[in-house]
């Protein structure tokens, strides 16, 4: 491997993580939860007559429902698992008293942070890949193409990157893993709820001021919430916005706004999920740089030689 691509923290973590039973048990538990919930959902749908296999269109609808359910479930699990994977990576090094040993090597603080993040993301990627067989069940029903699933998985990775960087940042900021983990979960929950509530409020104010709105307005705050990006992506994949589940839930915000005229500005012309991915990735990069700054042992500006 080329030297500039080689990250010792990542290489060591990849080597040691798969040792023992913990990782295998974690993957099994993760898939077990997904399978269990998917089975319950499927069973209830069939028993209630929501799903039946008499025609092509009903099969497509059933496939779509299963897909949407799995997509949201996996998204929720990623939001749950990623902070647990990242919020202790630096603080645990401090707790184990190994951080100083790392910082006095030739590795820069940023490469240590990147190595830690990538090793956590590698685990998330393993979970995502291991769920492919479950997602492939959707292909039995039809209605969803493999490229849709690939796009969804790409969005998962971007989400994990963004959420992971929040965990890493708090892990660098706080000395204790417990504190950084709790604060990471609180931040994610707070951002998720506040951005949607604030976004809805801003939209309602905007459209109430315009008697017959013709513009396409999406408040920027919605771009920081990956759930909104997921909603947009799934809505696009599901097709008809008037009949699928997502527009029923999230149409209040962007579904309605999209039906109102054409978007203004190049950024808003982008699909919402792509704009959302770009914004959360940008924030993630800033947080990673801030994390590297926090753990940087030697702050030149402080020293008066």
């Amino acid at each position, binding site marked *: 491997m080329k*030297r500039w691509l*080689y990250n*010792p*923290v990542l*290489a*060591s973590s990849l*080597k*040691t*993580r798969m*040792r*023992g039973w913990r990782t295998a048990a974690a993957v099994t538990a993760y898939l077990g939860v997904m399978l269990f919930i998917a089975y319950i959902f499927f069973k209830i749908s069939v028993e209630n007559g929501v799903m039946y296999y008499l025609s092509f269109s009903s099969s497509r609808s059933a496939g779509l429902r299963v897909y949407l359910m799995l997509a949201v479930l996996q998204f929720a699990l990623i939001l749950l698992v990623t902070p647990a994977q990242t919020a202790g990576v630096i603080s645990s090094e401090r*707790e*184990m*008293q*190994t951080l*100083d*040993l*790392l*910082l*006095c*090597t*030739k*590795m820069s603080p940023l490469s240590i942070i990147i190595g830690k993040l990538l090793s956590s993301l590698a685990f998330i990627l393993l979970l995502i890949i291991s769920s492919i067989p479950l997602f492939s069940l959707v292909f039995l029903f039809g209605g969803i193409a493999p490229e849709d699933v690939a796009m969804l998985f790409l969005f998962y990775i971007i989400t994990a990157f963004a959420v992971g960087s929040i965990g890493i940042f708090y892990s660098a900021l706080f000395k204790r893993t417990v504190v950084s983990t709790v604060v990471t979960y609180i931040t994610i929950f707070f951002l998720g709820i506040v951005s949607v509530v604030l976004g809805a409020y801003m939209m309602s104010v905007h459209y109430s001021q315009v008697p017959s709105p013709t513009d396409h307005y999406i408040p920027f705050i919605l771009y920081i919430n990956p759930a909104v990006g997921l909603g947009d992506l799934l809505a696009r994949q599901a097709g008809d916005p008037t009949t699928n589940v997502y527009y029923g839930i999230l149409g209040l915000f962007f579904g309605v706004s999209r039906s109102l005229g054409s978007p203004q500005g190049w950024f808003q012309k982008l699909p919402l999920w792509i704009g959302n991915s770009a914004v959360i990735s940008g924030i993630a990069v800033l947080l990673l740089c801030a994390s590297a700054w926090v753990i940087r*042992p*030697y*702050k*030149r500006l*402080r*020293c*008066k*030689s």
Partner: protein
Amino acid sequence: MLVVRDLVKKYGDFLAVDHLNMEVERGQIFGFIGPNGAGKTTTMKIIATLLAPTSGRVVVDGIDVFKDPIKAREKIGYMPDFFGVYDNLKVKEYLDFYGSAYGIEYRERRKIAEDLLELVDLSDKKDAYVDTLSRGMKQRLCLARCLIHNPELLILDEPASGMDPRARAEIKAILKELKRMGKTILISSHILPEVAEICDSVGIIDRGKLVVQGSVEQIIQRMTGRTVVRIRVLRDMDRAISLLKEQPMVTSVIQEDQELEVACKGSDEDLWQLLRALVSSDVPVVSFRKMEGNLEQIFMEVTSDEEMAL
């Protein structure tokens, strides 16, 4: 090799390091001695580029560590007083990991790791998991770790603390071997006699200040103002005592069986004059030994008097 000039480290109003100056020659073992909380670890962390000072300058082999910390790290091997080890990592993988963190190529670091494990006598443990090693073994492994990039200056913060006498002896033997290899070693301890026998010179730090620096003998002489020699004579004990008392540099003579404990002022030159006086008077001297002073007592005296500086 190491020059520290006017180093100051403040934590709010607390002065952890107070205008500290010291120099360590290349190839020397320098004992950095002081009671707990004296500022040893803070100073060592600053030298190891892990902590920014409030002011001052540290130069390692001509490199200003504050201006070029990355380059300075190539010259420094740091072993902290407390350190942890990773789970799930074998001894050889542990060294391989740190070798890669120092940018050493895979084949080269494998060879270096084997040599270092041999040096610290852990070759037979190379496939053992690090967290299963005893404390003494972990200390030796950490010593090997800080040698992985072949640094010229080793900063060892209390490397023998909490170890049994056998493990201490092993560490001392390794340090002697490293000195033979030409390494410069800065070693801290809160017990002066513990490191005195392996150190070429020592510095005693108290409340952030380096209160005394020099060889162990120099410090003893400066602090007590005298040298003690034990002289064994075959016969003519009374004549030897009266002859010794006549010498101007002798301050006291105490007889213990066939040995005499003689306290005298002055340098090694004066001791030689003393021995020559005895031999030229046909006193049958069979043993003439310069005694080390009571290091413990000196350490206590130095660290209890804030104003004592040489």
